[in-house]
């Protein structure tokens, strides 16, 4: 049987991510042999500080995405079901529970090696994601290792935001003391400065790629942007991440110069809300691509992880930049109005024709208010939206037929609007 020809043009550079992620996880697995401190992390934690202390860290959501895209997640969720975890719980949390159980199991001869990570010396969480912090709390009690959880308040206003930044910064200082006590080494502030220089460089390159993808036709899909979060997280602050985004930018520039779109014959430019459905990325983009639709912007990819004014990162004041980013992510999560304004801005900058809102129990802060967002954007910009049900890693909450029927109907609406215009 011959492979069907893929419509959507994947970026050459994005295919490097697989190798980069594998290399990262191989390094993590060798953590013990290489005599490194190993940490498990939950939520968008300050990876910069860990890297400055040469700590090998597992980022459990990145790992979840990595495994889900390789169909490796089922085994882990089965394990979590077995100990009584409800299937209603966030699927990243369930998967993470599986990682924990495997790391504790005595006989691993039958386990796929990529599902195994070494047990941690300590754990780190942020409260931006309540459920991942819950997972941290549960696993810390089970593993009995030291831990630190950074409290990031659910702010909804600018004045609260400023207090939140100060609160987070104070905790980062305390966390540095925690790291020094744990490792018995002084914190390497010079190294942190170098890391922040690279964080800024990579983040600026990433933002430039986003700007380039505003062109018509758009050279990238949202899934290219999502895949970039891998290097953005686990390789944050390294030469690898800077090199990756440089190569990506060069390729995207090339596409723009030659007017090559990620989707042939681009007709509709769509916004994607919430996390991706990792196990359907290919099928969904092909489905949309066949109708000339491309998903090109989203909150997760375009508004988080130093994508907001990265040029302002001051390597001489690293903790300010890190605290601001953490508080910022949490504010975007917490404040539907602010989020609506950001989506409006994305719609304008990227000349979006429609909103696709992925509704999923795995990222609750993005859920309540999705209909309000659709209605507000429709009112302000005359752009329609559709809600589809899914989950980033759990296929039992997803139906091909239902989603595709909804998307087809939505594309008809878009077509009718285009004709009317």
């Amino acid at each position, binding site marked *: 049987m011959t492979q069907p020809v893929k419509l959507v043009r994947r970026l050459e550079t994005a295919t490097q991510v697989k190798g980069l992620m594998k290399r990262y996880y191989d390094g993590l697995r060798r953590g013990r042999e290489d005599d490194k401190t190993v940490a498990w992390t939950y939520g968008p934690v300050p990876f910069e500080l860990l890297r400055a202390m040469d700590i090998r860290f597992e980022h459990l959501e990145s790992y979840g995405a990595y495994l889900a895209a390789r169909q490796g997640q089922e085994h882990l969720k089965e394990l979590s079901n077995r100990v009584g975890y409800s299937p*209603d*719980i966030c699927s990243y949390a369930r998967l993470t529970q599986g990682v924990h159980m495997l790391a504790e199991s005595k006989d691993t001869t039958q386990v796929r090696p990529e599902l195994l990570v070494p047990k941690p010396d300590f754990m780190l969480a942020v409260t931006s994601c309540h459920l991942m912090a819950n997972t941290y709390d549960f696993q810390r009690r089970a593993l009995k290792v030291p831990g630190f959880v950074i409290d990031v308040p659910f702010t909804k206003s600018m004045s609260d935001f400023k207090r939140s930044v100060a609160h987070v910064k104070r905790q980062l200082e305390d966390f540095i003391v925690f790291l020094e006590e744990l490792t018995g080494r002084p914190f390497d502030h010079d190294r942190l400065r170098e890391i922040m220089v690279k964080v800024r460089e990579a983040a600026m390159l990433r933002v430039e790629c986003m700007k380039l993808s505003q062109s018509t036709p758009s050279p990238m899909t949202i899934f290219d942007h999502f895949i970039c979060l891998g290097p953005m997280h686990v390789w944050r602050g390294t030469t690898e991440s800077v090199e990756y985004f440089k190569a990506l930018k060069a390729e995207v520039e090339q596409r723009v110069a030659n007017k090559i779109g990620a989707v042939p014959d681009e007709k509709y430019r769509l916004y994607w809300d919430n996390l991706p459905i990792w196990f359907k990325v290919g099928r969904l983009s092909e489905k949309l691509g066949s109708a000339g639709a491309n998903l090109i912007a989203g909150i997760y990819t375009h508004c988080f992880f130093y994508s907001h004014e990265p040029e302002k990162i001051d390597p001489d004041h690293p903790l300010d930049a890190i605290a601001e980013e953490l508080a910022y992510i949490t504010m975007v999560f917490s404040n539907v109005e602010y989020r609506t304004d950001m989506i409006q801005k994305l719609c304008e900058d990227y000349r979006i024709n429609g909103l696709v809102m992925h509704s999923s129990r795995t990222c609750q802060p993005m859920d*309540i208010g999705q209909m309000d967002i659709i209605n507000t954007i429709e009112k302000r910009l005359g752009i329609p939206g559709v809600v589809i049900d899914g989950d980033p890693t759990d296929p039992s909450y997803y139906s091909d037929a239902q989603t595709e029927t909804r998307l087809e109907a939505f594309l008809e609406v878009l077509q009718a609007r285009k004709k009317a215009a």
Partner: protein
Amino acid sequence: MEQIFSRFKEIADQPYGYLRKWKEQNGKKIIGCLPMYVPEEIIHAAGMLPVVLQKSNEQISLGPANVQSYFCGIVRSLGDMIQENKLNFLDGVVSPDICLAIRGLSNMARMRMRDIYYFDLLLPLAVKNKASRPFLRDELERFKASLEEFSGNKIERDSLLRSIQVFNENRALLRELCDLRRNKPGLIGAADLSSTVVAGMVMPKEEHSRLLAELLSGLRKKEAPSNGAVRVVLSGSLCEFPSRDILDLIEDAGCIVVDDDLYAGGRYIASDLGMDGDPLEAIASRHLDMAIPCPTRFDQGSDLGDYLVNLVNTSRAQGVIFLIVKFCQPHDMYYPYLVEKLQEAGIPNMMIETEHEMPSVGQVKTRVQAYIEMIRRKAK
């Protein structure tokens, strides 16, 4: 006594009907507090009525339009009421940092009830962090100032202490009710006790305490019927009041509830505030050193599993029945751990998942009966 219980039941079942009427008669401002940890004492000291918002027993009509079906009952129910303008009689809403679902709901309250007072109370989740105490202290100061501005009443130390006293007294009376239930199993039904606590979350504490004192003077003289029922502790049901049907079903099947860690029970009345020293500091400590560990906080230094085992032992209960609210993710996350703890301690336990629309109580009843049989066999 029956009259007082039925008055409490009436208020707990129809809190919003009661409050609308109360407002007409008293003309005072009512501040709705989203569960669970708003320091109501400060609102009281500003001369307003603090009320813990409850879900309604009505069907959810707007359904998943804005609050998806995979959210818990109280969030869906309150979301419905907000969208239907049923809470517009409130003068304000205070939203504490509890969980992701309540965080989403508070957005809805803020956006759809624009002309009323709104306050986000940023309660630390990592309660033992060094930075959390000064942050919370600051937050309470800001909350107080904001309430002063809204109410037009200055909150002096003395007025705050007077309010704290009103609340301490009310908690002491409710704790006596719990003690009576523990010491005379069967004297007070689980549904009556929960309704009593919920009525206290809704009505003015002074009025609630007056009725409660009267109730207690009658109950103290009464003896409990000894009918050989199995003694159990209820655990769970954060934020929302477990349905009377479920509580009655458990007791009709042959159990007696002797204690609980429910929000509409032991959790709400767990700690008093000190009358000397700085009242806001005392309020901060109550949150940071929570008497009953809560699944929504992290690194608390105390353990809900240990607490539960201890509760079973001190109340001489024979088992635990978990009431887990469907889609309460923080509690779902904790549940396997609690089961493990109880198993280690040799305490039988079962779980009932409660939903806003309970489909078949018959099945639940059969399961409770089987559970009781198991405990009885074990006792022999």
